């Protein structure tokens, strides 16, 4: 079942066609990797879908609803959330508060001035649950600015995940961490996301990660789609595989 | 008709001074990304120093013509203050939160304002004898001091020199490179620290020059720095922070509006200016030509 669809989506920056008439389809429940060289337009596509940017032309449809001209807030309410390539956290707040803020915002409780945040047991319970899923429970009281890089990347995803989206965009969730940590992060992210039945679109450069965790791989190049298929199908497509990997694959 | 001409000339005079102040502010912001809240006070220092020098000169019997040299000397003294301030008070804060920059320059503002009071006291300091050196012209049936035309001239010359320097000299290229990407410029071997000090010095020179050329027409008084700061910001809001063209356009706009405002609403002259600034900010938050 199709969760999100773009119709002829275009975005141009001066001469550069970052998105050149894209018809992007995301199926419900799948774990999709968006790959391609730098400047291929992956982040721009995510920015357009998350309302960070407005398209020059084209449409974005969420379950057949046209959301092309909706605002960031409306899109979040519709169930689209994202994390960031360069970690974007509330460094002055504790790890707990970072996630709790997501929950409060989702529940519309941020208007409450007259009650203590700590006294909202529902939010507290849910926050601890999410922190536990991401392995951050022991760091709950630590200010987000004091975490190690790998933990920061996990927290960035957790904050987006706590919005309980139906569609979650992750922009390079493993960039900047050691190979060992990459596996840890992707294991966690993958199991939480699948367990929560959230559809995920992940921008990734690490091909090991991509092939290991994805249901489907979409490859972008200079604003258009070059390939689209399951890891096996991509592997079988020698041309695409060699562009992706720079050398023939051994299965 | 003559009155109109005089009004226009007065507006251009005011615009000239405003341009110098605002261009200095914009230059500093454009290159260094800092906003110097003490900028208006530096303008005031320029006015006071110049007036004081002229006064001393007259007391010592120096011929009036020579005293015109006190104008650039006054401006230079402010530039010197700037060159001392930058490494001492501003450099420690480039990597810190923006609030600290604002706080430090605010503290500097307080220091300068009270220093002026300490050195020169509460009575206004004037240098109007300097105006007598130049003839009085006839405009229609009215009289107009030629000195005012000099002020307008200085403003125009400054604009041209600044524009030429920024866009047609090697130093200008350095300035622009540093303003666009500090780290990149540094990686390319530019001495960013030196560029910063020089940019700040030039910005302060302009503020000081504004004070120096205005003081023969209106005496230096306490509090002129604060008013200048706020009006300079109105100029920069309208013209856009970081833009030379914007400073020019903004200065002209503010000046003419102020002249018109004084005609019709003398009580609310200041309020009218702020109203315009607020309106511009509502419609175009970065100003007409801004890069902020």
């Amino acid at each position, binding site marked *: 079942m199709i969760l999100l669809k773009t119709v002829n989506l275009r975005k141009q920056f001066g001469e550069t066609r970052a998105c050149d008439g894209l018809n992007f389809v995301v199926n419900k429940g799948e774990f999709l990797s968006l790959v391609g060289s730098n400047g291929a337009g992956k982040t721009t596509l995510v920015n357009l879908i998350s309302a960070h940017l407005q398209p020059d032309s084209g449409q974005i449809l969420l379950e057949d609803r046209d959301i092309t001209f909706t605002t960031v807030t409306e899109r979040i309410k519709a169930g689209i959330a994202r994390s960031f390539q360069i970690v974007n956290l509330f*460094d002055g707040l504790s790890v707990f508060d970072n996630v709790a*803020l997501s929950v409060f915002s989702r529940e519309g409780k941020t208007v409450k*001035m007259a009650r203590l945040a700590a006294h909202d047991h529902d939010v507290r319970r849910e926050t601890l649950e999410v922190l536990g899923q991401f392995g951050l429970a022991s760091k709950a009281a630590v200010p987000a600015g004091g975490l190690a890089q790998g933990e920061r990347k996990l927290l960035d995803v957790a*904050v987006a995940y706590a919005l309980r989206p139906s569609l979650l965009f992750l922009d390079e969730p493993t960039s900047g961490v050691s190979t060992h940590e990459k596996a840890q992060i992707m294991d966690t992210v993958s199991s939480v996301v699948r367990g929560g039945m959230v559809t995920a679109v992940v921008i990734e450069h690490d091909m090991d990660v991509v092939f290991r965790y994805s249901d489907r791989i979409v490859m972008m190049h200079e604003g258009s789609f070059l390939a689209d298929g399951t890891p096996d199908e991509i592997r079988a497509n020698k041309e695409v595989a060699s562009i992706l990997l720079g050398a023939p694959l051994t299965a | 008709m003559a009155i109109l001409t005089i009004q226009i000339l007065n507006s251009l005079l005011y615009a000239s001074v405003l341009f110098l102040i605002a261009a200095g502010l914009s230059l500093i912001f454009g290159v260094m990304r800092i906003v110097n809240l003490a900028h208006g006070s530096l303008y005031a220092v320029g006015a006071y120093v110049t007036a004081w020098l002229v006064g001393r000169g007259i007391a010592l019997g120096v011929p009036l013509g020579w005293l015109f040299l006190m104008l650039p000397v006054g401006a230079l003294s402010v530039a010197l203050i700037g060159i001392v301030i930058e490494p001492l008070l501003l450099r420690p804060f480039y990597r810190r939160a*923006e*609030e600290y920059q*604002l706080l430090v320059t605010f*503290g500097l503002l307080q220091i300068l304002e009270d220093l002026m009071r300490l050195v020169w006291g509460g009575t206004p300091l004037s240098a109007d004898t300097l105006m007598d050196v130049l003839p009085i012209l006839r405009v229609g049936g009215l009289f107009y001091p030629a000195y005012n035309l000099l002020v307008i001239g200085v403003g125009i010359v400054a604009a041209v020199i600044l524009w030429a320097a920024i866009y047609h000299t090697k130093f200008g290229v350095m300035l622009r490179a540093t303003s666009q990407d500090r780290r990149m410029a540094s990686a390319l071997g530019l001495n960013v620290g030196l560029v910063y000090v020089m940019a700040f010095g030039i910005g302060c020179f302009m503020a000081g020059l504004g004070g120096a050329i205005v003081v023969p027409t209106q005496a230096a008084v306490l509090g002129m720095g604060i008013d200048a700061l706020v009006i300079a910001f109105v100029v920069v809001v309208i013209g856009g922070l970081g833009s030379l063209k914007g400073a020019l356009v903004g200065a002209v706009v503010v000046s003419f509006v102020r002249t018109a405002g004084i005609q019709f609403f003398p009580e609310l002259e200041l309020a009218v200016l702020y109203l315009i600034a607020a309106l511009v900010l509502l419609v175009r938050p970065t100003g007409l030509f801004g890069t902020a």
Partner: protein
Amino acid sequence: MTTDAPPLRNRSLLKLVAAAVPVLLVLIMVPSLVGTYQLQLVIYGLIAAIAALGFNLLLGYTGLLSFGHSAYFGVGAYSVAFVVEHLGPHSMEFYLLIGIPIVAITSALFGYICVRHTRIFFGILTLAISQVIYSLALKLYWMTGGSDGLRVPRPALLLGLLSFSGPQGFQHFVRSYYYYVLGIFVICVILMWVIVHSPFGKALQGIRDNEVRARFLGLQIRRFRWISFLVSGTFTGVAGILWVPLNGLTTPDVLYWTFSGEIVFTALLGGFRNFTGPIVGGIVFTYLKTYAVASTEYWQLLLGVVLVTLVLVLPTGIVGAISRAGQRLSRRKAAT
């Protein structure tokens, strides 16, 4: 699913109460320990603390530095003076009843204009607005008394239950007024503490730390900043309302930019990244200023030098420095 996350906020709440109770006891005892003049100083200190507390909601918790908070203090003071001139009873409750909505509306109005802008322009706009109000207070002298200002006689407290006249009237007034202000001070502290620790307060801090992320959490940035401005200006306005009956007089000085500078200074002095910083700053500054004004005519210069020194050397303020020293001590204890 059990976790071993500690009960975070309960601990900090207990700590706060434990620290606050002895302080409160001392404050209650003060009138029996000091004379009338000193008592007035303490009252001014508490008033400054309230003003700084309000100011810091905007700076410390929302990340917006206002250089024009004197406007709200002054509007509070002048609204009391207008009430005295034109309306009825000289009753403190009446002053608060009329004054608080006026400062709230003023803050809401100017806040709406100011929060549309980034930090630098925000700061200048706040400064510009306060200068406009200052110049209006100066120029519209038939309404505001111009540079002479307006007199405000001693009000009655507690709905007229307590009024003060006769030879010992002033001393009695100061004593009673002290408890009155102390009561309002405690209410303000509790209110602000709750606001800052509420979901709203957390959202403000999130916006302060990372505006982009906050937007991508679905938060309406401008609206939060506006409400923060409104609350902030109102608290500072309440300080102004409390100030003028004791001072007996309000003049345009209280609207001038230098007064805004003092408010900024108090927050920095105490430390703007802590809740109690502005409170400490307000009280300490009141004493500092009194002695500075007494010793030199150029205390503005002194203030500027101290401000710059503080920013260079002690940017976290008094409370920040104390808490950091405390952390270092506890770390050393844990290590041994």
